[in-house]
């Protein structure tokens, strides 16, 4: 039942792109996602382990196709809907 995040020793990902990429965010929304997640954990809406669990629960094909912060947004949304902070579909507007 190991999930898609658990890649240690997995083969086939190819060479490492060693480009020294120093920009932490590539779009404003990524920075917002980063900060919102920090705030939600600080407010104890959920904890860090729940967040990791939610990232990992992303279906494997979707997980691999998603960018780093798209995974984060998926996890935040999953947890907020599960905890009833937002209603299912409420973010789709």
């Amino acid at each position, binding site marked *: 039942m190991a999930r898609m995040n658990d890649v240690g020793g997995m083969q086939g990902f190819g060479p490492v792109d060693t480009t020294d*990429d120093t920009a*932490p965010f590539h779009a404003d*929304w990524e920075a917002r996602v980063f900060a919102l997640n920090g705030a939600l954990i600080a407010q104890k809406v959920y904890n860090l382990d729940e967040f990791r669990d939610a990232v990992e629960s992303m279906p494997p094909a979707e997980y691999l196709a*998603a960018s*780093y912060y798209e995974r984060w947004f998926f996890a935040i949304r999953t947890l907020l809907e599960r905890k009833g*902070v937002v209603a299912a579909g*409420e*973010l789709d507007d």
Partner: protein
Amino acid sequence: MTGTTHSDALISRRVRRLETLLEERGIVTGAAVDEAIDAFLTGASAAGGARVVARAWTDPGFRERLLADGTEAVTELGLSAGGVQPQRLRVVENTAGTHNIVVCTLCSCYPVRLLGPSPSWYKSEAYRSRVVREPRAVLAEFGLVLPPDVAVTVWDSTSETRYMVLPRRPAGTEHLDEPALASLVTRNALIGTAAL
């Protein structure tokens, strides 16, 4: 970054919507979010880690304390391993006979407070999957070829301990002071994918 963001406008709209909802519900404020982003970007460098290394190179007592208890030792420089929840710092020392490399195979754990935001490659599946299995091949892709007799240890950050490498001090730097030494230290050397 892994994957491509072909739906940037869509997700951007959803994130804005999320922030609005959380503001309406009194969970966050826009100002606090801005502040958190600014704080993160302000600390976005490996300068802290580099200072720690330069001090360890020049102060044998500090080096000893650093290797024994990194969490405590870096507070002497006003630094901390930091993180969303309390983290322990463990500094691992490269020597003539040993080389250390840091990874997080399960997610992307990284000593952000000391090294700044992690590079994209650190979060990539390619690095995370391969470095535990074939570290020398991965290091070669970074241009670092280690002699065969150097023992390699890979540190997989699977708990709340964060790892930082204490690289070897380059030869011919005896005349340099601490700030000059710190300026020689690269982020990749602190992760273990480069030597100095």
